């Protein structure tokens, strides 16, 4: 147990980011603990008020569907940042770039190549063809630089040994980057002395990198200054704040489907000066809603005729259609093999051990110990539908077992990872809370990894559920510059 006059901290089971097994601060957290110990309870409370006031004033909020309490909630950020030493991050960064590169090669192979990975038996063909994320209409549509997944959010966890593992890939419309930037801005203001004690790698160049990536997929004929727009489902979407944030930072218009129209396979925006051509769409609308003429006819969110414009090569779309096949949880177990297949390298970041429930022997083995595993629906995201074996009732497990037997393709089972924990302020005291990390990776002419990412926190003691839609919090995430401890 770590104690000082004002500060005590007792670590939980598993790996703790800030203290070692004897509860001594890890070297890169030493300055943080010293600084925190100097804060009186009153000072801490006043800083928490300042933080809340900043987020409120800026209107940094997110919506929770089906929440009667109001349309918007203020963003929850803990005052204790997460710190990642430079050496540790260097490995993570290489692992992320490697993974996204391989996933994009896989996607390009499926949609515009000869599907070599299927032919050579790396991934079972039927898994790809039965994936909800596989979009047949996208076959044949080319994307410059093969940047099909232009913005990826790769969820990482650290297991009991402290090894970073990939928990899942988010290749469709990953969100959270705006909170990375706003957390940094807010924490710097609320804890200036703490920030000044560290050399932190900046994150504010994200918008410039994103714009460069987006412009790199513009139709070639457009020239040097393509017009980029951000396509949002609208103000009622839970990530609307982020859509507006990104549009503002990119200097792009934030459009809804009704603001765009397609004529002669060309996309135009309706403006006060008439129709203006759109060259690249950064869309935050799901595949199924993007073009009501091809997909869901009842969708009001998309742009009729967009598919035609894509086929004609008159507009760039990021992320491109059909990325969901590669972040299907049933494809996830094959990603290390895909890395080896396309890059001839071993995966730098390992997966979490996963049972393929569509293989008879693995299904039997998993069903025998469901109460120790995590069961996930392959097509859902945001933490919805997940059953955590050790915390589930017998009845829940029984329902789960029946569903798996009925449709094994729809589920995966994973070993329960004892997520790492991190000191977090709870009612004025430091307590361990479990965390994960969502770094953001940009593809385009080259691959760019933003230092750090969004650290999400399970605010209930012992809980592993970090999703903000389910009451999770967040932390500013610092990647230190230069040699460790420097």
């Amino acid at each position, binding site marked *: 147990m770590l104690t000082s006059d004002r500060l005590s901290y007792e670590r939980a089971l598993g790996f703790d980011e800030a203290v070692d097994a004897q509860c001594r601060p890890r070297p890169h957290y030493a300055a943080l603990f010293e600084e925190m110990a100097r804060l009186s309870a009153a000072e801490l409370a006043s800083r928490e008020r300042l933080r809340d006031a900043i987020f*409120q*004033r*800026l*209107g940094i909020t997110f919506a929770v569907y089906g929440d009667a309490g109001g349309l918007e909630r203020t963003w929850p950020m803990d005052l204790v940042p997460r710190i990642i030493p430079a050496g540790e991050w260097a490995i993570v960064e290489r692992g992320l770039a490697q993974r996204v590169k391989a996933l994009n090669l896989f996607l390009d192979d499926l949609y515009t190549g000869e599907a070599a990975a299927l032919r050579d038996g790396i991934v079972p063909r039927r898994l790809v063809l039965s994936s909800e994320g596989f979009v047949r209409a996208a076959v044949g549509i080319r994307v410059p630089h093969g940047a099909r997944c232009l913005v990826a959010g790769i969820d990482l966890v650290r297991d009991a040994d402290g090894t970073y593992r990939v928990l899942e890939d988010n290749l469709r419309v990953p969100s959270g980057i705006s909170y990375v930037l706003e957390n940094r801005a807010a924490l710097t203001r609320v804890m200036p002395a703490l920030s000044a004690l560290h050399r932190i790698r900046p994150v504010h160049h994200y918008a410039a990198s994103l714009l460069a990536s987006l412009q790199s997929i513009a139709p070639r*004929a*457009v*020239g040097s200054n393509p017009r980029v727009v*951000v396509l949002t489902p609208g*103000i009622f979407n839970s990530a609307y*704040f982020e859509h*507006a*944030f990104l*549009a*503002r930072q990119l200097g*792009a*218009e*934030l*459009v*809804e489907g*009704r*603001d765009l129209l397609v004529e002669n396979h060309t996309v*135009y*925006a*309706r*403006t*006060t*000066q*008439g*129709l*203006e*051509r759109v*060259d690249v769409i950064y869309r935050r609308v799901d595949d199924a809603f993007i073009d009501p003429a091809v997909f869901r006819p009842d969708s009001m969110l998309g742009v009729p005729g967009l598919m035609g414009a894509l086929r004609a090569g008159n507009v760039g779309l990021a992320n491109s259609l059909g990325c969901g096949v590669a972040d299907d949880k049933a494809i996830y177990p094959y990603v290390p093999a895909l890395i080896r297949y396309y890059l001839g390298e071993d995966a730098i970041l390992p997966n979490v051990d996963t049972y393929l429930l569509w293989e008879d022997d693995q299904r039997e083995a998993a069903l025998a110990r469901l109460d120790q595993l995590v069961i996930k629906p392959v097509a859902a995201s945001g933490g919805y539908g997940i059953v955590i074996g050790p915390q589930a009732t017998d009845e829940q497990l029984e329902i789960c077992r029946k569903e798996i037997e009925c449709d094994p393709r729809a589920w995966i089972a994973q070993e329960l990872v004892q997520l790492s924990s991190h000191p977090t302020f709870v009612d004025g005291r430091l307590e361990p809370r479990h965390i994960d990390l969502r770094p953001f990776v940009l593809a385009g002419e080259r691959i760019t990894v933003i230092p750090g990412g969004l650290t999400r926190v399970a605010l209930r003691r012992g809980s592993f559920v970090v999703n903000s839609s389910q009451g999770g919090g967040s932390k500013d995430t610092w990647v230190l510059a230069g040699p460790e401890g420097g």
Partner: protein
Amino acid sequence: MLSRHAEDLFWAGRYLERAEDTARLLDVTYHGLLEGGGSDAPMALQEVLDALHLSSAFRSRHRKVTAAAVEQFLVLDESHSSSIVAAISRARENGRNVREHLSTELWEALNTTYLDLRAEGRAEELAAHPHEFYRRVRSRCQLVAGAASETMARRDAWRFLLLGRLVERAEMTCRLLRVRAPRANGDDAHDDIHYWLVMLNAVSALESYARRFGAEITPARVLEFLVLAPDFPRSVLFCLRGIETQLGGLEGGVAAPALRRALSRIRAELEYQDVAELLDRGAVAALERTRRGIAEISERIESCYFANGPIPERHVYEAV
């Protein structure tokens, strides 16, 4: 910029101005009643409702015109878009829709204004210290306007926001005067000086008026000042000229001919207006004509810039 965004900004401007003008009007009415002895309360309150064109909406919710009921209706009632709280909410909602066009300082000012008016205890404050409440609304709205003016590039987003404010303000000034105008050349006009004073106060014009005409207040001069003063930012003529300037500054050049004609016509009519003549011919009719003209301008702005219909070929941007 996107038509939808231009429309949201225009209406954000109108709602902001509406909130501020309503607060001004209620503030001076309330204090005018106190100073005037309070016997005319129902009539003064009825005039406020008439000026805002809200009499029938009010009657569908309240039976009697009392100070408390009118206050509740014009300040806190969110079931219609013209109460102060509803107008601020809508301005903020519109701002959220076009968040990427607003400077962070402008958005902060708008958002904190919204949060501030919905903070706990505002209803009690309104009941106990109405002047403080109205002053708060006024200064909050000015903070928003100031943030816009000092932090927004002079591009279309700023221009549409300002257009909304100017249109709303011009129309509001016309409405205020139109309600008061029947008394302008009646026998008891001079007993009513008190009300004309309130009127000047409502638009922060008393000091400017006094510098121009001295302390004596006559209906004709108040009318002249609030309609025709070329240099007072809340006069009708000043607003119209502002509208013309902003339309001319929009990217893509001059406004559509029909809009430009409507605007020039009504501005020219005012510029060549003689006040004595205006009073002779009937101030009510003249003000009503001007008000209709402004409403027409607003409609033409909407059809010209916000309509999502087919758009002429020549506007299509070509790839280079």
